[in-house]
């Protein structure tokens, strides 16, 4: 469970995030939408303790992320390419993450087996370093790596951007399956309203750092969101 209390982040006089109280229960699939600069990545960065909040705190499974590192073993994320190690091959990267998360090579291999169609034969055994892969393929590697080690909290920033249609559909299926089991709390941000409504059971709309909509997804949600953003 994730709980933000009185959480704000300011740069100078500008408030980029202001969440008086936001709670995400365990097992929920949670979607964050908003225009550029709405505060989506800021929220994720705060949750991962990559930046410091101006006020307030954020708790991940009862652990305050700023004061303890105990959230790291069960949390996993892919935000951008700074989560990739450019000079490794995809295999080496997966094994590295696996070792950090206490997974044997066989565990990792078993997980990767399930992603073969996701990879489209362009990732494994390609004799390429991650830095030489295309942006889309890099993203696939990063997203896949975030599934390693059975995380309880999974954070994906804009996972659908830059992906090819086949992979988008496949990723949506994986995320929906996860949501169905209700064991993993999935946090996804996106610009694409259709994708989010398909994957997430709850959608929060941010605007200039504030929550302006907090909706439980229904068949009408997409229309509602389109109306909101369309003005």
């Amino acid at each position, binding site marked *: 469970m994730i709980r933000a209390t009185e959480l704000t982040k300011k740069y100078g006089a500008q408030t980029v995030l202001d969440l008086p109280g936001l709670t995400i229960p365990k097992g929920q699939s949670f979607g964050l939408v908003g225009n550029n600069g709405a505060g989506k990545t800021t929220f994720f960065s705060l949750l991962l303790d990559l930046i410091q909040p101006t006020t307030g705190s954020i708790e991940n499974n009862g652990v305050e992320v700023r004061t303890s590192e105990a959230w790291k073993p069960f949390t996993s994320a892919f935000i951008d390419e700074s989560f990739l*190690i450019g000079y490794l091959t995809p295999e080496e990267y997966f094994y590295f993450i696996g070792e*950090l998360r206490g997974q044997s090579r066989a565990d990792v291999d078993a997980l990767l087996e399930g992603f073969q169609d996701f990879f489209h034969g362009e990732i494994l055994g390609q004799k390429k370093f991650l830095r030489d892969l295309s942006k889309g393929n890099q993203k696939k590697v990063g997203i896949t790596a975030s599934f390693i080690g059975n995380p309880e909290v999974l954070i994906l920033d804009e996972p659908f951007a830059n992906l090819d249609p086949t992979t988008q559909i496949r990723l949506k299926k994986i995320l929906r399956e996860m949501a169905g089991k209700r064991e993993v709390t999935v946090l996804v941000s996106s610009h694409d309203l259709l994708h989010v409504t398909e994957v997430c059971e709850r959608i929060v709309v941010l605007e200039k750092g504030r929550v302006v909509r907090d909706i439980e997804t229904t068949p009408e949600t997409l229309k509602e969101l389109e109306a909101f953003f369309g003005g």
Partner: protein
Amino acid sequence: MFKHFIRLQWKSFVRSSSFAANLWIKILMGFFALYFMAVFLALGVGAYFFIDDAGLGDPLRVVNRFLFYYLVMDLYMRYMLQKMPVMNIRPLLYLPMKKSQVVRFSLGKTALSFFNWSHAFFFLPFSIVLIAQGYAPLSVIAWHLGIMALFYVNNFLNIMVNNQDRIFYPMLLVLALLGVSQYYGWFDVTEYTSPLFDALYDFPWTAVLPWGLLAYVCWASYRYFRRHMYLDAGLEMQKTTAKTEDYTWLNRFGNLGTFLKNDIKLIRRNKRSRTTVITSVIFLLYGLLFFTGSLEVYEATVWRVFAGIFVSGGFLFTFGQFVPSWDSAYYPLMMSQNIRYREYLTSKWYLIVMATLVSTLLSAFYLYFGWQAYLAVVVGAVYNIGVNSYLVLWGGAYIKTPIDLTSNKKAFGDSQAFNGKTLLLTIPKLVLPLVVFWVGDWLWNETAGYLMVALAGIAGFGFKDIVFKRIETIYKKEKYKTLAAYREKAA
């Protein structure tokens, strides 16, 4: 059209992050630049009289003799440091500009580089002195212009051979061999090259030849670039075939092994870190200055300890001082993954210790200069492992310069690595062992001095835990600042 280029160039200069560095660092760098200019000017003016007084022969001929090495060194320095114009071209490709214009501009830009005109600080005054001393003015001018053309030839050669490690390292080896054989008088390459430079003076019309050569390489590099100006040709970043490597022998180190594996890959697969390793090999040879007695100022035995620390600690200093910056490109990953600072640090420490041990073994050739010479290296190694290995990691925690692993830019010295805290830490790193040795030497004898330095190193082991805790606290305290600083490069 040219107006646009110039304006872009000016903005990229003024808005570069190095320009925005601290004021006092800028002033310091300014002083350094002035200092070097002054040194070169003084050399240019003084070289003639110095060579003349020393009775080495005709100053012009002496300079001509060593000009070969000078030119080669110049090429080497360019290869290591001069920035290539290629990458800035990319965004211009899509714009309505003629390709030939873009190429001409970026090649022309390199002509203005510091690497070209800095030589004038030496050669201009030197030539003026020559004329003043009664050398034929026309011949001197021809010689001068000819040599300058050669520097520009280097400029364009460098553009074409850049990133061709395959050519470069064998060439370096050949040159090192030439230098050694000249030193020992086996074979003197300058006997064959100096007549060429002499000819520029003796037959002034020959100065046309270097200019002809310049025109040729100029044209060749224009053609080369023009032909390769496609994203998948000349403008492409170099790609290497990757091989997945396991290093299973490191698994016995458990969690540490995971990091060690990564660090070894980091060093092997990135240009910048490879340069670091090569630099530390050069450090191995640093002791030659001290132990061969070639420099009188270094005769005092205290300096041997100094040499010992550098010989065994090349990697320690060049790599260690940039931990954790080596991981800057993926620092957010490291900070959100299941990683303990202690393990991360310990793995870096092991790496440094292993490299120090290897350096010590490799420097066994100093036995040739007597066992005292090698003893100094071994003692230096003990001190490095026992004390300096923590101190460089400590100092590194304050350095927040992101490292671009794929380029050699800033590989040698970086203004930001130069802050008060790291300077303060060099005192125990370099000065303390000298003092310890000096005290031992003064109280008893040389051997006692060495022994005391070694003991200081062993005593340092006892502080490992305390220092590591301290570094951990710094890491935690500086975490957000470090993350922000590393992110800046990406933006």
